[in-house]
């Protein structure tokens, strides 16, 4: 049975009956907005349920809305090879409680995607096995993809070797 928007809606509402999901469709691609509390359990279900089988985590990233109440949205792009179906998950994260559960126990590749998101946006991923920065040096204090970070950086925040000659 091919996967459809209706089937996913039905399955998620059955399994997580207490949750409120918002389903939107754009250009035949389905997006599910959800609460960040249950993200790990939900991802595990999406991967392991035989009919869904979202076994490929394509990307994890975030959006900085700058002035919105829930400042960040963490975005998961997942794909079911078995069903040839692409799904986007969105979970809001507020700056005052800037963390979300890690899904690296579900998809191994999420480990580095979450490290990148942490590096660029400063969102902490709970229970992540190795939450170090991905690109910027360890001692760097800022998160460059936040909207309040200036394009040319903070002067003096990145070190250069001393010119000895």
């Amino acid at each position, binding site marked *: 049975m091919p996967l459809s928007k209706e089937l996913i809606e039905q399955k998620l509402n059955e399994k997580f009956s207490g949750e409120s999901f918002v389903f939107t469709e754009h250009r035949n691609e389905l997006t599910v907005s959800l609460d960040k509390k249950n993200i790990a359990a939900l991802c595990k279900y999406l991967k392991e349920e035989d009919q869904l089988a979202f076994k490929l985590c394509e990307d994890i990233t975030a959006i900085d809305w700058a002035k919105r109440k829930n400042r960040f949205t963490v975005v998961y792009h997942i794909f079911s090879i078995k069903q040839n179906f692409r799904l986007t998950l969105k979970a809001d994260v507020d700056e005052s409680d800037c963390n979300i559960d890690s899904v690296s126990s579900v998809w191994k590749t999420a480990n580095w995607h979450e490290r990148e998101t942490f590096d660029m946006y400063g969102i902490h991923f709970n229970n992540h096995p190795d939450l170090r920065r991905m690109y910027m040096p360890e001692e760097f204090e800022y998160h460059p993809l936040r909207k309040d970070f200036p394009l040319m950086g903070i002067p003096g925040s990145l070190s250069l070797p001393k*010119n000895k*000659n």
Partner: protein
Amino acid sequence: MGLEARLNGDSFFTTTVDALTEWARKNSVWPMPMGISCCAIEMMASGDPKYDIARFGSEVMRFTPRQCDLMIVAGTVTYKMSHVVRKIYDQMPDPKWVIAMGACTSSGGMYRSYPVVQGIDQFLPVDIYVAGCPPRPDNLLNALMQIQDKIGRTKARDFQDKPLPELTVIQNN
């Protein structure tokens, strides 16, 4: 052929130490190919038979800094990479020269952004800047010829033994 035709049967000729070292140095500039991004492709092209960097005695691209005289920094240098570039430069024996190849190394180029060093002369003594994005091989060869001219203007005693630079240990790297 060349030299022996001028000797006219004599078995010796006279010259100065400066002229001899200068001649030897400028015709055996061994480059350190510091290929970091796309400029490195043009740098490799200048080594192929069409452009043939061997005409200038510089075909010996050594991948160890200890055998090199000239560092060709070819590519975008980020702040994180700058420490590596400097560390390799420090391991090259004196006398040594640096070519900043391309827009990125010379000025940051199109990467006017926080992670990219806006010109490697902030941490390296650069001799020649090569324009282009990336520069064509003939442009790089022109830079090499200018380095040769520059070496030609030096004297053997210009390069006295210098004390070795202090070793710095970079933590967490």
